[in-house]
Protein backbone atom coordinates (compact mmCIF):
# COMPACT_ATOMS: atom_id res chain seq x y z
CA UNK A 1 0.00 0.00 0.00
CA UNK A 2 2.73 2.39 0.98
CA UNK A 3 5.39 1.61 -1.57
CA UNK A 4 3.79 2.73 -4.79
CA UNK A 5 2.47 5.99 -3.48
CA UNK A 6 3.10 8.89 -5.81
CA UNK A 7 3.79 12.12 -4.06
CA UNK A 8 1.01 14.57 -4.58
CA UNK A 9 -0.57 13.74 -7.87
CA UNK A 10 1.89 15.29 -10.25
CA UNK A 11 1.48 13.77 -13.70
CA UNK A 12 4.96 13.93 -15.20
CA UNK A 13 4.76 14.61 -18.90
CA UNK A 14 6.25 17.40 -20.94
CA UNK A 15 3.66 19.92 -22.07
CA UNK A 16 3.32 23.66 -22.51
CA UNK A 17 1.28 23.78 -19.32
CA UNK A 18 3.87 21.79 -17.39
CA UNK A 19 6.57 24.14 -18.62
CA UNK A 20 4.82 27.27 -17.41
CA UNK A 21 6.52 29.05 -14.55
CA UNK A 22 5.09 27.65 -11.29
CA UNK A 23 4.43 31.20 -10.11
CA UNK A 24 2.26 31.83 -13.14
CA UNK A 25 0.32 28.67 -12.47
CA UNK A 26 -0.17 29.45 -8.79
CA UNK A 27 -1.30 33.00 -9.49
CA UNK A 28 -3.58 31.91 -12.32
CA UNK A 29 -5.14 29.26 -10.11
CA UNK A 30 -5.96 31.92 -7.55
CA UNK A 31 -7.19 34.21 -10.32
CA UNK A 32 -9.34 31.40 -11.70
CA UNK A 33 -10.92 31.01 -8.29
CA UNK A 34 -11.71 34.69 -8.31
CA UNK A 35 -13.32 34.31 -11.72
CA UNK A 36 -15.33 31.36 -10.46
CA UNK A 37 -16.61 33.41 -7.53
CA UNK A 38 -17.31 36.44 -9.66
CA UNK A 39 -19.23 34.41 -12.19
CA UNK A 40 -22.98 34.77 -11.73
CA UNK A 41 -24.41 32.44 -14.27
CA UNK A 42 -24.25 29.12 -16.07
CA UNK A 43 -22.97 30.65 -19.31
CA UNK A 44 -19.97 32.04 -17.41
CA UNK A 45 -19.29 28.61 -15.99
CA UNK A 46 -19.41 27.33 -19.53
CA UNK A 47 -16.63 29.75 -20.49
CA UNK A 48 -14.54 28.75 -17.47
CA UNK A 49 -15.10 25.09 -18.17
CA UNK A 50 -13.93 25.56 -21.75
CA UNK A 51 -10.78 27.21 -20.41
CA UNK A 52 -10.19 24.25 -18.07
CA UNK A 53 -10.79 21.82 -20.92
CA UNK A 54 -8.28 23.70 -23.05
CA UNK A 55 -5.69 23.47 -20.27
CA UNK A 56 -6.37 19.77 -19.77
CA UNK A 57 -5.91 19.23 -23.47
CA UNK A 58 -2.70 21.25 -23.68
CA UNK A 59 -1.33 19.52 -20.58
CA UNK A 60 -1.87 16.11 -22.21
CA UNK A 61 -4.08 15.08 -19.30
CA UNK A 62 -7.31 13.17 -19.35
CA UNK A 63 -10.44 14.86 -18.07
CA UNK A 64 -11.00 12.06 -15.59
CA UNK A 65 -7.68 12.92 -13.83
CA UNK A 66 -9.08 16.33 -13.14
CA UNK A 67 -12.42 14.88 -12.10
CA UNK A 68 -10.77 12.40 -9.77
CA UNK A 69 -10.12 15.20 -7.31
CA UNK A 70 -13.84 15.51 -6.79
CA UNK A 71 -14.14 12.20 -4.99
CA UNK A 72 -12.70 13.27 -1.65
CA UNK A 73 -14.99 16.28 -1.48
CA UNK A 74 -18.06 14.57 -2.91
CA UNK A 75 -19.70 14.62 0.51
CA UNK A 76 -19.19 18.36 0.84
CA UNK A 77 -20.60 18.96 -2.63
CA UNK A 78 -23.60 16.81 -1.83
CA UNK A 79 -24.14 18.54 1.48
CA UNK A 80 -23.99 21.99 -0.11
CA UNK A 81 -26.38 20.83 -2.76
CA UNK A 82 -28.89 19.45 -0.29
CA UNK A 83 -28.70 22.42 2.08
CA UNK A 84 -29.17 24.90 -0.72
CA UNK A 85 -31.95 22.84 -2.16
CA UNK A 86 -33.95 22.83 1.06
CA UNK A 87 -33.06 26.14 2.62
CA UNK A 88 -33.23 28.45 -0.36
CA UNK A 89 -36.73 29.63 -1.04
CA UNK A 90 -38.38 31.73 -3.72
CA UNK A 91 -39.88 31.13 -7.11
CA UNK A 92 -42.30 28.43 -8.08
CA UNK A 93 -42.73 25.55 -5.65
CA UNK A 94 -41.71 22.31 -7.29
CA UNK A 95 -42.29 19.91 -4.48
CA UNK A 96 -43.70 20.14 -1.00
CA UNK A 97 -43.88 17.57 1.76
CA UNK A 98 -44.32 18.22 5.49
CA UNK A 99 -41.77 20.96 6.29
CA UNK A 100 -39.67 20.40 3.19
CA UNK A 101 -40.19 22.69 0.25
CA UNK A 102 -38.21 22.66 -2.94
CA UNK A 103 -38.49 25.73 -5.11
CA UNK A 104 -37.17 26.63 -8.52
CA UNK A 105 -34.77 29.12 -6.98
CA UNK A 106 -33.61 26.53 -4.47
CA UNK A 107 -32.88 24.02 -7.18
CA UNK A 108 -31.10 26.60 -9.29
CA UNK A 109 -28.91 27.83 -6.40
CA UNK A 110 -28.13 24.26 -5.39
CA UNK A 111 -26.97 23.32 -8.86
CA UNK A 112 -25.08 26.59 -9.18
CA UNK A 113 -23.23 26.11 -5.89
CA UNK A 114 -22.38 22.51 -6.71
CA UNK A 115 -20.95 23.52 -10.06
CA UNK A 116 -18.98 26.30 -8.43
CA UNK A 117 -17.37 23.82 -6.02
CA UNK A 118 -16.61 21.38 -8.81
CA UNK A 119 -14.99 24.14 -10.83
CA UNK A 120 -12.83 25.15 -7.88
CA UNK A 121 -11.65 21.59 -7.44
CA UNK A 122 -10.90 21.17 -11.12
CA UNK A 123 -8.89 24.39 -11.15
CA UNK A 124 -6.68 23.35 -8.25
CA UNK A 125 -6.36 19.83 -9.63
CA UNK A 126 -4.99 21.32 -12.80
CA UNK A 127 -2.28 23.06 -10.78
CA UNK A 128 -1.18 20.03 -8.80
CA UNK A 129 -1.35 17.69 -11.78
CA UNK A 130 0.93 19.82 -13.91
CA UNK A 131 3.34 21.19 -11.30
CA UNK A 132 5.80 18.99 -9.44
CA UNK A 133 5.74 19.45 -5.66
CA UNK A 134 9.24 20.84 -5.80
CA UNK A 135 8.36 23.40 -8.48
CA UNK A 136 5.33 24.31 -6.41
CA UNK A 137 7.57 24.86 -3.41
CA UNK A 138 9.96 26.99 -5.46
CA UNK A 139 7.09 29.01 -6.82
CA UNK A 140 5.56 29.63 -3.41
CA UNK A 141 8.93 30.60 -1.97
CA UNK A 142 9.50 33.08 -4.73
CA UNK A 143 5.99 34.53 -4.45
CA UNK A 144 6.20 34.94 -0.69
CA UNK A 145 9.75 36.28 -0.70
CA UNK A 146 8.68 39.95 -0.53
CA UNK A 147 6.89 39.12 2.72
CA UNK A 148 10.14 37.92 4.32
CA UNK A 149 10.99 41.59 4.84
CA UNK A 150 8.23 41.73 7.43
CA UNK A 151 9.37 38.50 8.99
CA UNK A 152 7.42 35.90 7.04
CA UNK A 153 9.63 32.78 6.91
CA UNK A 154 9.22 32.13 3.17
CA UNK A 155 12.55 30.40 2.65
CA UNK A 156 12.30 28.35 5.82
CA UNK A 157 8.84 27.06 4.97
CA UNK A 158 9.96 26.15 1.46
CA UNK A 159 13.00 24.37 2.86
CA UNK A 160 10.84 22.44 5.29
CA UNK A 161 8.49 21.44 2.53
CA UNK A 162 11.24 20.24 0.25
CA UNK A 163 12.95 18.30 3.04
CA UNK A 164 9.62 16.70 3.89
CA UNK A 165 9.20 15.72 0.24
CA UNK A 166 12.73 14.34 0.19
CA UNK A 167 12.22 12.21 3.30
CA UNK A 168 8.70 10.89 2.86
CA UNK A 169 9.84 7.99 0.65
CA UNK A 170 12.72 7.25 3.02
CA UNK A 171 10.42 7.15 6.03
CA UNK A 172 7.91 5.01 4.16
CA UNK A 173 10.68 2.52 3.37
CA UNK A 174 11.65 2.55 6.98
CA UNK A 175 8.08 2.01 8.14
CA UNK A 176 7.90 -1.03 5.90
CA UNK A 177 11.12 -2.39 7.29
CA UNK A 178 10.05 -1.91 10.89
CA UNK A 179 6.63 -3.39 10.18
CA UNK A 180 8.25 -6.45 8.73
CA UNK A 181 10.70 -6.72 11.60
CA UNK A 182 7.85 -6.52 14.12
CA UNK A 183 5.75 -8.98 12.17
CA UNK A 184 8.66 -11.40 12.15
CA UNK A 185 8.56 -11.19 15.92
CA UNK A 186 4.89 -12.02 15.94
CA UNK A 187 3.34 -8.57 15.98
CA UNK A 188 -0.17 -8.51 14.57
CA UNK A 189 -1.31 -5.29 12.93
CA UNK A 190 -4.38 -6.56 11.15
CA UNK A 191 -6.70 -8.30 13.57
CA UNK A 192 -8.65 -7.07 16.57
CA UNK A 193 -10.62 -3.91 17.14
CA UNK A 194 -9.42 -0.38 16.54
CA UNK A 195 -7.88 0.03 20.00
CA UNK A 196 -6.06 -3.26 19.74
CA UNK A 197 -4.70 -2.33 16.35
CA UNK A 198 -3.69 1.12 17.52
CA UNK A 199 -1.84 -0.52 20.39
CA UNK A 200 -0.09 -2.83 17.96
CA UNK A 201 1.09 0.21 16.03
CA UNK A 202 2.90 1.63 19.04
CA UNK A 203 6.04 -0.53 18.72
CA UNK A 204 6.12 0.67 15.15
CA UNK A 205 5.81 4.34 15.88
CA UNK A 206 8.40 4.55 18.61
CA UNK A 207 11.37 3.34 16.54
CA UNK A 208 10.11 5.37 13.61
CA UNK A 209 10.08 8.56 15.66
CA UNK A 210 13.44 7.84 17.21
CA UNK A 211 14.93 7.33 13.80
CA UNK A 212 13.24 10.39 12.34
CA UNK A 213 14.75 12.56 15.06
CA UNK A 214 18.19 11.04 14.51
CA UNK A 215 17.83 11.71 10.80
CA UNK A 216 16.79 15.29 11.42
CA UNK A 217 19.79 15.79 13.65
CA UNK A 218 22.24 14.36 11.15
CA UNK A 219 20.67 16.20 8.25
CA UNK A 220 20.96 19.50 10.08
CA UNK A 221 24.63 18.77 10.66
CA UNK A 222 25.17 17.81 7.01
CA UNK A 223 23.41 20.97 5.82
CA UNK A 224 25.53 23.11 8.07
CA UNK A 225 28.65 21.33 6.83
CA UNK A 226 27.64 22.40 3.35
CA UNK A 227 27.61 26.03 4.40
CA UNK A 228 23.86 26.36 4.84
CA UNK A 229 22.90 29.31 6.99
CA UNK A 230 19.41 30.24 5.98
CA UNK A 231 18.01 31.90 2.92
CA UNK A 232 19.99 35.12 2.81
CA UNK A 233 22.82 35.23 0.31
CA UNK A 234 21.65 32.04 -1.36
CA UNK A 235 21.50 31.68 -5.12
CA UNK A 236 19.65 29.11 -7.19
CA UNK A 237 20.97 26.76 -9.83
CA UNK A 238 17.77 27.21 -11.79
CA UNK A 239 16.28 30.57 -10.92
CA UNK A 240 12.65 30.97 -11.95
CA UNK A 241 12.23 33.09 -15.05
CA UNK A 242 9.03 34.24 -16.72
CA UNK A 243 8.89 33.34 -20.40
CA UNK A 244 6.68 34.32 -23.30
CA UNK A 245 4.34 31.39 -22.70
CA UNK A 246 3.54 32.76 -19.26
CA UNK A 247 2.27 35.88 -20.94
CA UNK A 248 0.15 33.77 -23.29
CA UNK A 249 -1.36 31.92 -20.33
CA UNK A 250 -2.22 35.19 -18.62
CA UNK A 251 -3.74 36.43 -21.89
CA UNK A 252 -5.93 33.34 -22.18
CA UNK A 253 -7.06 33.75 -18.60
CA UNK A 254 -7.90 37.43 -19.13
CA UNK A 255 -10.03 36.47 -22.12
CA UNK A 256 -12.03 34.10 -19.95
CA UNK A 257 -12.36 36.64 -17.16
CA UNK A 258 -13.51 39.18 -19.76
CA UNK A 259 -16.10 36.76 -21.05
CA UNK A 260 -17.37 36.06 -17.54
CA UNK A 261 -17.67 39.78 -16.79
CA UNK A 262 -19.42 40.55 -20.07
CA UNK A 263 -21.86 37.69 -19.48
CA UNK A 264 -22.44 39.03 -15.96
CA UNK A 265 -23.05 42.58 -17.11
CA UNK A 266 -25.44 41.66 -19.89
CA UNK A 267 -27.05 39.08 -17.63
CA UNK A 268 -26.62 36.37 -20.22
CA UNK A 269 -27.35 33.01 -18.70
CA UNK A 270 -27.44 34.65 -15.29
CA UNK A 271 -29.81 33.48 -12.57
Amino acid at each position, binding site marked *: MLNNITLGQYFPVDSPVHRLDPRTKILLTVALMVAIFVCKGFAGFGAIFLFILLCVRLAKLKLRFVLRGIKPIAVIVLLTFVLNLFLQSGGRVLWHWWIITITVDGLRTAVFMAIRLLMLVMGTQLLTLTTSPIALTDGLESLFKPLSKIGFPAHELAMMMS*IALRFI*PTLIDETNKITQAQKARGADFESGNLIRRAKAMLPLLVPLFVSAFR*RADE*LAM*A*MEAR*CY*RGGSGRTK*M*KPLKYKKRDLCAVGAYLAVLGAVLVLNIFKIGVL
Partner: protein
Amino acid sequence: MHEAISARNLSYHYEGADKNAVDSVNIEIARGEFVAILGRNGSGKSTLGKLFNGLYLASQGEVFVSGTQITDENSAYEARKHCGMVFQDPDNQMVATIVEEDVAFGCENLGVAPDEIKRRVQKALETVGMSEYALSAPHMLSGGQKQRAAIAGVLAMQPDIIVFDESTSMLDPSGRRDIFSLAQRLNERGVTIVWITHFMEEAALCQRLYVMDGGRVALQGTPREVFSDAEAVQKLGLDVPDMTALARQLKQNGIDVRSDIITIDEMEVELCRLA
Protein backbone atom coordinates in the same frame (compact mmCIF):
# COMPACT_ATOMS: atom_id res chain seq x y z
CA MET B 1 52.97 27.31 2.64
CA HIS B 2 50.55 26.44 5.44
CA GLU B 3 49.36 22.99 6.39
CA ALA B 4 45.92 21.78 5.36
CA ILE B 5 44.95 21.08 8.96
CA SER B 6 46.88 21.71 12.08
CA ALA B 7 45.62 21.21 15.61
CA ARG B 8 47.48 22.19 18.76
CA ASN B 9 46.38 20.95 22.12
CA LEU B 10 42.92 20.69 20.68
CA SER B 11 40.19 19.63 23.12
CA TYR B 12 36.45 19.36 22.88
CA HIS B 13 34.07 18.83 25.72
CA TYR B 14 30.41 17.89 25.19
CA GLU B 15 28.14 19.70 27.57
CA GLY B 16 27.40 17.49 30.55
CA ALA B 17 30.04 14.88 29.66
CA ASP B 18 32.46 13.95 32.42
CA LYS B 19 35.53 13.98 30.21
CA ASN B 20 36.79 15.52 27.00
CA ALA B 21 35.66 13.73 23.83
CA VAL B 22 38.78 15.10 22.17
CA ASP B 23 41.65 15.65 24.55
CA SER B 24 44.80 17.72 23.85
CA VAL B 25 45.21 16.48 20.33
CA ASN B 26 48.15 17.57 18.18
CA ILE B 27 47.78 16.85 14.49
CA GLU B 28 49.49 18.18 11.40
CA ILE B 29 48.10 17.24 8.01
CA ALA B 30 49.98 18.57 5.01
CA ARG B 31 48.32 19.67 1.80
CA GLY B 32 47.65 16.77 -0.54
CA GLU B 33 48.03 14.12 2.14
CA PHE B 34 45.75 11.12 2.55
CA VAL B 35 45.47 10.53 6.27
CA ALA B 36 43.38 7.96 8.11
CA ILE B 37 41.98 8.37 11.60
CA LEU B 38 41.30 5.12 13.43
CA GLY B 39 40.13 4.18 16.86
CA ARG B 40 37.50 2.16 18.67
CA ASN B 41 33.88 3.33 19.07
CA GLY B 42 33.66 6.46 21.10
CA SER B 43 37.34 7.29 20.81
CA GLY B 44 36.53 10.75 19.46
CA LYS B 45 37.08 10.37 15.72
CA SER B 46 33.82 11.97 14.60
CA THR B 47 34.17 14.75 17.11
CA LEU B 48 37.65 15.47 15.78
CA GLY B 49 36.35 15.51 12.21
CA LYS B 50 33.67 18.02 13.17
CA LEU B 51 36.28 20.24 14.79
CA PHE B 52 38.10 20.35 11.45
CA ASN B 53 35.28 22.08 9.65
CA GLY B 54 33.88 24.17 12.38
CA LEU B 55 30.74 22.15 13.08
CA TYR B 56 32.05 22.21 16.64
CA LEU B 57 34.18 24.97 18.11
CA ALA B 58 37.21 23.96 20.17
CA SER B 59 36.80 24.05 23.95
CA GLN B 60 40.54 24.45 24.31
CA GLY B 61 43.56 24.67 22.05
CA GLU B 62 43.73 25.77 18.47
CA VAL B 63 42.78 24.36 15.10
CA PHE B 64 43.86 25.85 11.77
CA VAL B 65 42.22 24.84 8.52
CA SER B 66 43.87 26.01 5.32
CA GLY B 67 45.66 28.62 7.35
CA THR B 68 42.68 30.18 9.12
CA GLN B 69 42.09 29.52 12.76
CA ILE B 70 38.59 28.46 13.71
CA THR B 71 37.57 30.59 16.64
CA ASP B 72 33.98 31.67 16.06
CA GLU B 73 31.00 31.14 13.77
CA ASN B 74 32.49 33.32 11.04
CA SER B 75 35.84 31.60 10.85
CA ALA B 76 34.02 28.27 11.11
CA TYR B 77 32.02 29.23 8.03
CA GLU B 78 35.24 30.06 6.20
CA ALA B 79 36.69 26.72 7.25
CA ARG B 80 33.65 24.90 5.88
CA LYS B 81 34.28 26.42 2.47
CA HIS B 82 37.72 24.80 2.46
CA CYS B 83 36.91 21.63 4.29
CA GLY B 84 33.96 19.53 3.14
CA MET B 85 32.59 16.57 5.02
CA VAL B 86 30.98 13.32 3.89
CA PHE B 87 29.07 11.50 6.58
CA GLN B 88 28.24 7.91 7.36
CA ASP B 89 24.57 7.59 6.46
CA PRO B 90 24.10 8.57 2.82
CA ASP B 91 20.37 9.03 3.38
CA ASN B 92 20.76 11.70 5.98
CA GLN B 93 22.92 14.08 4.03
CA MET B 94 20.84 14.61 0.93
CA VAL B 95 18.48 17.56 1.11
CA ALA B 96 16.86 17.82 -2.30
CA THR B 97 14.42 15.58 -4.13
CA ILE B 98 16.57 15.47 -7.26
CA VAL B 99 20.23 14.45 -7.33
CA GLU B 100 21.26 17.43 -9.41
CA GLU B 101 19.54 19.86 -7.05
CA ASP B 102 21.19 18.20 -4.11
CA VAL B 103 24.64 18.52 -5.64
CA ALA B 104 23.90 22.19 -6.22
CA PHE B 105 22.84 22.78 -2.61
CA GLY B 106 26.28 23.72 -1.26
CA CYS B 107 27.05 26.03 -4.17
CA GLU B 108 23.68 27.72 -3.75
CA ASN B 109 24.49 28.33 -0.11
CA LEU B 110 27.78 29.94 -1.11
CA GLY B 111 25.95 32.28 -3.46
CA VAL B 112 27.65 31.04 -6.63
CA ALA B 113 26.14 32.36 -9.87
CA PRO B 114 23.57 30.05 -11.56
CA ASP B 115 25.60 29.30 -14.70
CA GLU B 116 28.69 28.55 -12.67
CA ILE B 117 26.64 26.25 -10.41
CA LYS B 118 25.39 24.33 -13.44
CA ARG B 119 28.94 23.93 -14.72
CA ARG B 120 30.24 22.76 -11.36
CA VAL B 121 27.37 20.36 -10.77
CA GLN B 122 27.88 18.78 -14.16
CA LYS B 123 31.60 18.42 -13.56
CA ALA B 124 31.18 17.04 -10.05
CA LEU B 125 28.65 14.45 -11.23
CA GLU B 126 31.07 13.46 -13.99
CA THR B 127 33.92 13.07 -11.52
CA VAL B 128 31.93 10.70 -9.33
CA GLY B 129 30.45 8.90 -12.34
CA MET B 130 26.85 9.85 -11.64
CA SER B 131 26.02 12.00 -14.67
CA GLU B 132 23.29 9.66 -15.84
CA TYR B 133 21.53 9.94 -12.48
CA ALA B 134 21.46 13.74 -12.47
CA LEU B 135 17.66 13.79 -12.58
CA SER B 136 16.97 10.78 -10.36
CA ALA B 137 15.33 10.94 -6.96
CA PRO B 138 17.75 10.14 -4.10
CA HIS B 139 15.57 7.37 -2.72
CA MET B 140 15.84 5.49 -6.00
CA LEU B 141 19.62 5.21 -5.71
CA SER B 142 21.69 2.47 -4.08
CA GLY B 143 23.70 3.29 -0.97
CA GLY B 144 26.92 3.62 -2.94
CA GLN B 145 25.27 5.86 -5.51
CA LYS B 146 23.84 8.07 -2.79
CA GLN B 147 27.25 8.35 -1.23
CA ARG B 148 28.76 9.30 -4.58
CA ALA B 149 26.07 11.93 -5.05
CA ALA B 150 26.87 13.27 -1.59
CA ILE B 151 30.55 13.44 -2.54
CA ALA B 152 29.61 15.30 -5.72
CA GLY B 153 27.76 17.81 -3.56
CA VAL B 154 30.91 18.43 -1.56
CA LEU B 155 33.12 18.51 -4.68
CA ALA B 156 30.94 21.14 -6.32
CA MET B 157 31.94 23.48 -3.50
CA GLN B 158 35.56 22.97 -4.59
CA PRO B 159 37.05 22.29 -1.16
CA ASP B 160 40.79 21.75 -0.52
CA ILE B 161 40.08 19.16 2.12
CA ILE B 162 37.41 16.48 2.48
CA VAL B 163 36.77 14.65 5.74
CA PHE B 164 35.07 11.27 5.25
CA ASP B 165 33.48 10.10 8.49
CA GLU B 166 33.04 6.34 8.09
CA SER B 167 31.52 7.02 4.70
CA THR B 168 31.89 3.42 3.59
CA SER B 169 30.62 1.68 6.70
CA MET B 170 27.04 1.33 5.48
CA LEU B 171 28.00 0.05 2.03
CA ASP B 172 28.59 -3.41 0.63
CA PRO B 173 32.19 -4.40 -0.14
CA SER B 174 32.06 -3.30 -3.77
CA GLY B 175 30.44 0.02 -2.91
CA ARG B 176 33.08 0.46 -0.23
CA ARG B 177 35.92 -0.10 -2.68
CA ASP B 178 34.28 2.30 -5.14
CA ILE B 179 34.10 5.12 -2.66
CA PHE B 180 37.59 4.52 -1.36
CA SER B 181 39.11 4.55 -4.83
CA LEU B 182 37.10 7.68 -5.61
CA ALA B 183 38.70 9.31 -2.58
CA GLN B 184 42.11 8.17 -3.85
CA ARG B 185 41.43 9.71 -7.24
CA LEU B 186 40.41 12.98 -5.63
CA ASN B 187 43.59 12.87 -3.61
CA GLU B 188 45.61 12.48 -6.81
CA ARG B 189 43.97 15.68 -8.01
CA GLY B 190 45.32 17.46 -4.99
CA VAL B 191 42.45 17.23 -2.49
CA THR B 192 43.62 16.54 1.04
CA ILE B 193 41.72 13.57 2.44
CA VAL B 194 41.00 12.78 6.07
CA TRP B 195 39.61 9.26 6.12
CA ILE B 196 37.92 8.17 9.34
CA THR B 197 37.39 4.42 9.27
CA HIS B 198 37.06 1.09 11.05
CA PHE B 199 38.43 -0.87 8.12
CA MET B 200 42.10 -1.69 8.45
CA GLU B 201 42.31 -2.66 4.79
CA GLU B 202 41.48 0.93 3.91
CA ALA B 203 43.81 2.34 6.55
CA ALA B 204 46.66 0.25 5.13
CA LEU B 205 46.34 2.17 1.86
CA CYS B 206 46.52 5.62 3.43
CA GLN B 207 49.72 7.63 3.70
CA ARG B 208 49.60 8.23 7.39
CA LEU B 209 47.48 7.07 10.33
CA TYR B 210 46.37 8.56 13.59
CA VAL B 211 44.95 6.10 16.09
CA MET B 212 42.67 7.71 18.65
CA ASP B 213 41.89 6.34 22.08
CA GLY B 214 39.84 8.06 24.75
CA GLY B 215 40.02 11.35 22.86
CA ARG B 216 43.80 11.32 22.56
CA VAL B 217 46.11 10.39 19.73
CA ALA B 218 47.52 7.08 20.93
CA LEU B 219 49.57 6.10 17.89
CA GLN B 220 50.62 7.78 14.71
CA GLY B 221 52.81 7.11 11.71
CA THR B 222 52.77 5.35 8.38
CA PRO B 223 50.59 2.23 8.18
CA ARG B 224 53.72 0.11 8.25
CA GLU B 225 55.00 1.79 11.40
CA VAL B 226 51.65 1.61 13.15
CA PHE B 227 50.79 -1.98 12.25
CA SER B 228 54.27 -3.28 13.00
CA ASP B 229 53.35 -3.31 16.68
CA ALA B 230 50.37 -5.63 16.58
CA GLU B 231 50.00 -5.76 20.37
CA ALA B 232 49.77 -1.99 20.72
CA VAL B 233 47.24 -1.81 17.90
CA GLN B 234 45.10 -4.56 19.39
CA LYS B 235 45.22 -2.95 22.80
CA LEU B 236 43.61 0.10 21.20
CA GLY B 237 40.68 -2.01 20.09
CA LEU B 238 41.74 -2.43 16.48
CA ASP B 239 42.81 -5.33 14.32
CA VAL B 240 45.82 -5.35 12.12
CA PRO B 241 45.05 -5.71 8.38
CA ASP B 242 44.35 -9.30 7.26
CA MET B 243 47.60 -9.48 5.33
CA THR B 244 49.66 -8.40 8.32
CA ALA B 245 47.97 -11.08 10.40
CA LEU B 246 48.57 -13.63 7.65
CA ALA B 247 52.24 -12.70 7.39
CA ARG B 248 52.57 -13.13 11.13
CA GLN B 249 51.02 -16.59 11.05
CA LEU B 250 53.11 -17.68 8.10
CA LYS B 251 56.16 -16.58 10.02
CA GLN B 252 55.07 -18.50 13.12
CA ASN B 253 54.75 -21.55 10.91
CA GLY B 254 58.29 -21.17 9.78
CA ILE B 255 57.75 -19.50 6.42
CA ASP B 256 60.16 -16.64 6.06
CA VAL B 257 58.04 -13.72 4.85
CA ARG B 258 58.58 -10.08 5.66
CA SER B 259 56.70 -9.10 8.80
CA ASP B 260 55.79 -5.59 7.68
CA ILE B 261 53.35 -6.58 4.97
CA ILE B 262 50.10 -4.63 5.02
CA THR B 263 48.44 -4.92 1.61
CA ILE B 264 47.42 -7.79 -0.64
CA ASP B 265 49.74 -6.53 -3.36
CA GLU B 266 52.74 -6.70 -1.07
CA MET B 267 51.76 -10.18 0.04
CA GLU B 268 51.48 -11.26 -3.56
CA VAL B 269 54.96 -9.94 -4.37
CA GLU B 270 56.38 -11.56 -1.28
CA LEU B 271 54.80 -14.96 -1.96
CA CYS B 272 55.95 -14.86 -5.58
CA ARG B 273 59.46 -14.13 -4.35
CA LEU B 274 59.33 -17.22 -2.13
CA ALA B 275 57.82 -19.47 -4.74
